[in-house]
């Protein structure tokens, strides 16, 4: 009975790498250390509906076909398209992402990741002001003040607080939770907020106002701060600024509540500026709470392959980048994309209606282990192995630390990487034939 230690959980951006998995008859029978979400991913393998066969839509129905036929049909769509959108690629390995980018390059497609609807604005903020961060262990070992802003790790990253942040004990933080202050800034009192020493209830969409007020206080301009900002009293703001200044080491973990609320990337830009200001007094860093386990990896791979982290348009043969113009939703809402290849993501469930309506009109290729609402509008469906369980590969944790995901059980399904390679080969073959 093989017991695999130190397996990496491929669910959330915490990428916990201490999971013990027992495998019997090529089935995972026991999972130790994972949280509820991680656990459900490992067992989900056997409980959820897998896409069992490659399928092609014929007369409105998806009918099973061999892999080769699905690859050929998909490659034909790609070759016949003038503007393909390639989207997703965040719940898969970096190796697969690299091949997806090559496929986009060879087909002159536009490729974008799920950051389009989550931390994309954080990337824009880094382009504006940089990104002063640290690896998670630095927080564990040093931080005496932790701020969770617009995120709810209790539910989204269940082991984050025990492994890396609030509750973790480290070299200089031997008292763990007792030795550190925890602040939550959010629009509602989340379960994370309930655990905090201080909960700051901010008015919806007013993050930038609070950030600006905090910066004013940190920089000694408290006279410009009005009596209330973002629904918070000046007194409370000054106190929070003092806490930040007096901490020996603080970290602001920021989530989609910050990146996707009003002011978007300006919020991240503001947090970055605040961190820079704070370092005049003490040590402070920021870390984005990334959701999908390898959305950080997409940003990394895309950046070294193409120079840009997302929204990359190969229409000109070389990478062109202009988020707002070249993002996944941009080309769908403008009804510009005439085909789409979607992997390890579900725009059918997460994109605005107008974008989904357009998706439904164009040929869609889906690569995924599981059926989801996108399957309903897909014309070619190619099932994939689950990375981190049935296939190995690299993933980047939310702090950009890369880890090697293990293969735990065998499968007949092809990996995303292999599917992308097959598509590249088939596209080349068709192009040469043409």
């Amino acid at each position: 009975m093989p017991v695999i230690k130190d397996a990496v959980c491929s669910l959330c951006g915490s990428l916990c790498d201490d999971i013990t998995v027992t495998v019997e008859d090529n089935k995972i029978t026991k999972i130790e250390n994972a949280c509820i979400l991680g656990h459900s991913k490992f067992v989900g393998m056997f409980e959820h509906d897998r896409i069992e066969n490659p399928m092609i839509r014929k007369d409105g129905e998806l009918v099973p076909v061999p892999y080769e036929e699905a690859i050929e049909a998909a490659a034909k769509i790609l070759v016949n398209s003038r503007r393909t959108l390639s989207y997703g690629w965040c719940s898969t390995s970096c190796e697969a992402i690299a091949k997806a980018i090559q496929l986009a390059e060879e087909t002159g497609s536009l490729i974008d990741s799920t950051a389009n609807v989550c931390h994309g604005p954080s990337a824009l903020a880094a382009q504006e002001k940089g990104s002063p961060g640290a690896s998670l262990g630095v927080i564990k070992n040093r931080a005496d003040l932790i701020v969770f802003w617009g995120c709810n790790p209790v539910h989204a990253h269940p082991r984050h607080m025990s492994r890396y942040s609030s509750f973790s004990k480290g070299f200089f933080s031997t008292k763990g939770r007792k030795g550190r202050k925890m602040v939550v800034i959010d629009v509602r009192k989340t379960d994370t907020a309930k655990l905090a020493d201080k909960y700051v209830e901010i008015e919806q969409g007013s993050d930038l106002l609070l950030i600006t007020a905090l910066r004013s206080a940190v920089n000694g301009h408290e006279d410009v701060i009005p009596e209330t900002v973002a629904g918070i009293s000046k007194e409370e703001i000054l106190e929070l600024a003092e806490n930040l200044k007096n901490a020996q080491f603080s970290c602001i973990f920021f989530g989609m509540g910050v990146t996707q609320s009003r002011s978007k990337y300006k919020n991240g830009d503001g947090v970055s500026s605040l961190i820079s200001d704070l370092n005049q007094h003490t040590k402070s860093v920021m870390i984005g709470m990334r959701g999908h386990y390898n959305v950080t990896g997409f940003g990394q791979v895309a950046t070294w392959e193409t120079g840009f982290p997302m929204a990359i348009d190969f229409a000109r043969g070389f990478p062109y980048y202009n988020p707002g113009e070249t993002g996944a939703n941009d080309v769908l809402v403008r009804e510009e994309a005439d085909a789409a290849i979607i992997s390890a993501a579900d725009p059918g469930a997460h994109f605005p209606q107008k974008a989904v309506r357009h998706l439904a009109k164009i040929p869609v290729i889906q690569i995924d282990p599981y059926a989801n609402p996108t399957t309903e509008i897909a014309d070619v469906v190619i099932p994939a192995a689950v990375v981190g369980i049935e296939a190995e590969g690299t993933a980047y944790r939310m702090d950009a630390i890369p880890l090697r995901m293990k293969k735990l059980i065998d499968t007949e399904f092809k990996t995303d990487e292999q599917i992308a390679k097959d598509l590249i080969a088939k596209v080349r073959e068709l192009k040469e034939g043409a």
Partner: protein
Amino acid sequence: MRMSEILIKNANVCDPAQGINCETMDLCIRDGKIVESVSESAKVIDAAGRLTMAGGFDGHTHSAGKINVGRFMNPNDARRTLVPGLSGPEAMTEKTRAQVGYNTPNTYAIGYRYAKLGYTTICEAAIPMLAARHTHEEFKEIPILDKMGLSLFGSNWQVMEYIRDKEPEKLAAYVAWGLKASRGYGVKIVNAGGGEAWGWGKNVSGLYDPVPNFDVTPAEILMGLAEANEKLQLPHSVHVHCNNLGKPGNYETTIETMKMFEKVKPVVDRQALHVTHVQFNAYAGTSWRDFETGAPMVADYLNGANHLTFDLGQVIFGPAVTMTADGPVEYANSRMLHEKWSNQDIELEDASGVVPLSYSPKSFINAVQWAIGIELALLVEDPWKIMFTTDSPNGGSFVNYPEAFTYLMSAKKREQVISGFGKMALDRMVLPGLDRELSFYELAIMTRSMQSKMYSRPEKGNLKVGSDADVAIYDIITSDIDPSVEHEKVKQAFSGAAYTLKDGKVVVKDGKIEATPMGRTYWVNAKVPADIDSAMNKDTDIKFKKYYTVSKSNYMVEDSYLPNPVEISTEGEF
């Protein structure tokens, strides 16, 4: 397998390793190696009397890892076309992937462009061990070039504890383990102890300023690691980024550091110390107001010392991206220059930062910085001590190497640049008084030959029989050209090799990419006695259990990240 043979006829060979100074001869290649002779059926390349050197070897460049942070925060760099043919966007072709960038090109562009310059080997100068997989992931996507990387040890807790507790054997075992874990080639020390101090937003001020909470000094860290380096008989010496980088008056710390290493006895036939990007560490004055060159003092010391090598960190005017494991320096840069700032502290190990900036000839500080690099190259008499670099992209992108070569080879070219400087700048440098002009022979030493010795890679950087057939042929007839006058021609020829051969395969022809074979990755496996190794492992087990956020087993870079590995084994002397 059929033998592949090439005869390079009429090559005007400049190979300092053999003392060959622009002599016309034939070069024979078989199966990727230089050989005595080849058969009649060998493919012939007619070099037509053109300048022929071993493939260039950039021994200190930032080409994988934190360069990605530079790309990430500077998408504008992707569109820069400052050096035509070697920067900016280029669509994919049948032979090449798409390219972008200038200071921070994408991985493919890095491979192609170095090859166009006739370079075939690079050393990434900073691998944060916890993130080493990332370096190797990028290495995998850099075509053509052979690669190696230096692992960061200068602010590492385990290192500092072993030095504090006087456990040199375990320290050596840890260094060996770290190199293996990160698949590194050598020991890099950046601002010894400063990275740890930066963990609390502080810095160390010099060689004897204790590191907070660890009760060791930078001097002890440097000496401790140097001793471990020799104990392990590593192919490269310690590679040191001195304390106080970027600060006026730092030349004193630099010379002090160099002097300290006089007592280190190398057990391998190479230097005891390599000091990197000395331009940034050869500053005199007490503040930016009275800032001036410290190159004469540093060069004076270097001329009398024989235990070390160094590289320049030459500045190129225009945009650059600074990236260094010197975390506190980057924060200071960003505040001083009002520039954006990225930072990445790595648990238990080190810190780093990235800040873009622009060097302007109008700024007297930048002008003096520009001069210091050249001054060092001209004032230090023995080119075998000097590696030419821009610390790419810190001083400027490597694509400017040809431009920078002309600074070294032509006083006239320097005058052209200097004529744009203000009086204030001129008063603070000694360059206008220097008329030395380097020869092709000296340039070859600084760009390939000394690297071979410095990294103990006898098969690299020279054209001896048995060496790798990495060859660059430049469109220069040395007898017909006066580089001190015809510097533009020199620049042009070095910007796009007539031929670059990698392992005997033509990868560049007439400045264009012909083929993109995958290069090797060198890493060092230093053997340590089992008992010492296991005692050290007990200590690191505790570190992983209590303080790291990854399991020890997941720390080690797996074989699959090195598609073409070359393991260099050494026997430690314990």
